[in-house]
């Protein structure tokens, strides 16, 4: 058994095609890991009583990839046993119930991958330059994550 053949990898992808849970989890599976933890962010069909038709995402792509890379580096510092990390985020139009983001992390035992996945999505929401527009029947709204420290929280 030579674990050095399975060097830890980060798989970061921003794309407009439909995301695949199978594809993302297969990226992180490792024979040295007993746990793969996943987070899937999906599109809700309502917000404050308004019907959401679909979401649209845009990104400062180069910086978003850099920020996600930093998140992966932080994860490996906090949970050194984490093996592979995959973060796939969809851009453009995302229909209701489809996934906007899938995060998968593998580790030998489950605690680290579960905690790392939570850290990834929470930190992504606070620091990665991606924007979501909710399209309703008559109007639209640029959303603001509460984790964003420069957002105006009083409306």
């Amino acid at each position, binding site marked *: 058994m030579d674990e050095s053949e399975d060097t830890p990898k980060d798989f970061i992808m921003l794309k407009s095609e439909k995301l695949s849970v199978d594809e993302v989890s297969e990226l992180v599976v490792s024979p040295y890991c007993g746990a793969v933890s996943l987070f899937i962010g999906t599109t809700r069909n309502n917000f404050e009583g308004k019907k959401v038709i679909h979401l649209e995402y845009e990104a400062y792509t180069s910086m978003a990839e850099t920020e996600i890379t930093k998140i992966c580096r932080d994860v490996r510092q906090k949970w050194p046993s984490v093996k592979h990390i995959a973060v796939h985020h969809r851009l453009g139009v995302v229909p209701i119930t489809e996934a906007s983001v899938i995060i998968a992390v593998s580790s030998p035992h489950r605690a680290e991958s579960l905690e790392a996945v939570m850290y990834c999505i929470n930190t*992504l*929401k606070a620091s990665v330059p*991606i*924007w*979501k527009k909710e399209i309703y029947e008559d109007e639209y709204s*640029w959303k*603001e*994550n509460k984790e964003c420290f420069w957002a105006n929280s009083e409306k």
Partner: protein
Amino acid sequence: QVSVLYFARSAELAGLRCETLSVPRQITSLQLWEEIVKVHPRLAVIQDQVVFAVRQEYVLLGDQLLVLQPGDEVAIIPPISGG
């Protein structure tokens, strides 16, 4: 001359996604914002909600002195909503 990138609501208010702007090599982030608002006055409404990303590092609007090189990317970053 720097490249200014506009995203989300700021792109809607400015009416474009990217342009080159001539600015002093040394300028505070607030002064840089004011230069941009001179060109696109509609951006003034989001002043309290945006930050910059200068060479892909976040910078608050304020007294921070920026040292800009020709071709540097400066992005206007409205409140984010990824994930």
